[in-house]
């Protein structure tokens, strides 16, 4: 049987991330629909006993050049796997590895690609993806005619359980020359431990770009102080240098799961939601009634945060 779906294992360090199993779970459905095998690409060095989840076949490139992550080297390895497996569909995530490699791989292959997918399905032989555009304000249903259809999926779009169920896949070892890749990995650094731990709090006051300026942060800091909880923030607040990195919630920040998450002036971009969508209760304040944050929030208000926050502080 030929390979229908190739899932790219996105492990760089540590454990295989959830998203790989999410993709394997969805990949199994698509492989069944297309009548082919589910494969996983594992690219690294001394990969050892990595789980292959639900895959029927594992393509392994184990090379010292992959000991440390470097996009172009991993891409060359992946291209070799795609050539060997010749899948109809390649599934990656819009995590770093997917952001790095999915589009360039597709362009090199002259293959169709959909980014920011939240769903993937088949209609006969055609792969149909549903992608989030404009920060989640619109969805696009797109048909991918041509092989392989490359789809990069937003983490958290599918359940991981079905993909975790392990079998005993056939192992195919692929040897590639990675000398000419033009890049070498130098190593990986884990985040430094710091004083604030926004992941431990039961309640978080979280602020986004709606706050407007650094000076205005004082307003939300007063509220956080009154509640005796840490102040969390979306990425732009950190990138502007208004708060240090350990305060960031989201894909490249911390994953938080407080009982209550109070989101003030945050639009709800997919990368932010990745970090906070499993909070017990989400209360969102955003003047734009169409802001995507209201889709995940349990309670919402379109009152201006500059009016709401002082009223809240006053009551505590």
């Amino acid at each position, binding site marked *: 049987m030929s390979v229908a779906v190739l899932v790219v294992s996105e492990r760089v360090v540590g454990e295989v991330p959830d998203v790989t199993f999410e993709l394997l779970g969805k990949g199994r459905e698509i492989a069944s629909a297309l009548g082919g095998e589910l494969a996983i690409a594992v690219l690294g060095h001394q990969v050892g006993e990595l789980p292959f989840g639900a895959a029927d076949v594992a393509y392994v490139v184990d090379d010292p050049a992959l000991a440390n992550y470097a996009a172009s080297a991993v891409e060359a390895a992946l291209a070799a796997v795609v050539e060997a497996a010749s899948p109809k569909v390649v599934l990656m995530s819009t*995590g770093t590895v997917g952001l*790095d490699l999915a*589009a360039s791989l597709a362009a090199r292959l002259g293959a169709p690609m959909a980014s920011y997918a939240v769903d993937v399905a088949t209609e006969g032989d055609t792969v149909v993806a549903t992608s989030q555009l*404009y920060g989640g304000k619109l969805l696009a249903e797109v048909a991918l005619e041509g092989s392989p259809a490359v789809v990069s999926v937003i983490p958290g779009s599918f359940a991981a359980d079905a993909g975790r169920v392990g079998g005993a896949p056939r192992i195919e070892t692929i040897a590639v020359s990675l000398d000419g890749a033009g*890049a070498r990995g130098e190593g*990986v650094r884990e985040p430094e431990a710091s004083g604030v731990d926004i992941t431990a709090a039961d309640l978080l006051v979280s602020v986004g770009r709606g706050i407007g300026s650094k000076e205005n942060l004082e307003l939300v800091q007063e509220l956080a102080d009154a509640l005796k909880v840490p102040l969390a923030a979306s990425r732009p607040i950190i990138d502007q240098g208004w708060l240090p990195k350990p305060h960031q919630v989201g894909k490249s*920040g911390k994953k938080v799961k407080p009982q*209550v998450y109070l989101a003030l002036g945050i639009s709800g971009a997919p990368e932010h939601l990745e970090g906070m969508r499993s909070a017990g209760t989400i209360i969102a304040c955003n003047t734009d009634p169409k802001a995507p944050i209201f889709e995940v929030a349990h*309670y919402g*208000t379109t009152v201006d945060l500059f009016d709401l926050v002082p009223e809240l502080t006053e009551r505590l």
Partner: protein
Amino acid sequence: MDIVVVVRQLADLVEELEVNDEGTDIDRDFVKFVANEWDEAALEEALCLKEAVGGTVTVVALDEPDVDQTLYAAAAKGADRVVKLTGHDPDGWVRTRERAARVATWLRDQHPDVVLTGVQAADDLDGQMAGVVAAYLGWPHAAVVVVVEPAGNELTVTQELGGGTVATSTLAMPAVLGIQAARQAPRYAPISRIRQAQQSTTIEEVEIDEPAIGAVASVRRLFPPPSRGGAEMLEGSAAEVADKIVEILRARGLVRA
């Protein structure tokens, strides 16, 4: 170091986005177009690199609504050259694949050491720019880049992997980088300086023929996400909403009665 920064215009996400009559694109007639925020970070990083090691910064964009303003602003911030690529419908949706192919066509005649662009744009349906430009040129690339350091004829870059973990790698030049954040927040160009740049800067125009881009995703339908019920909206004045929120916190024992 000669740096090219690829920038673009994008519908302002703060605006209401309507779908056009065909249901396959946004209605561009009533949209405000602004510079892609990640490209602003790429430009900032380019200017910082030039300040650190010398060289030139060239900013290139496709012809798009209000792009001249963005190019003049780049000149006002310190770009040495600004270039506009024409030869496509300036009012339509140019997908990433085609955009990248047009930019790559132009780049083939340039000899930059590094190309910087934003890590993504909110309508990158068929992938993110940096990797595609690199694919067309056969150059190394990296996305989600937060640190760029020249080291001889190589570049050392740091990429975010998620959750605060970062990976460092060394790339041969020329390379294409998708910038996530510059070493500092993008500088601001006062309107007076942009006006001055408008007087003193010429936007070079280069016509690019339609490139071949292979199979791409075809949009069948563009639509607002079906509401999953979403939030229970708290109505009333700020004071009334504050009362309700405090009530919710109190019910969960998060503030004392």
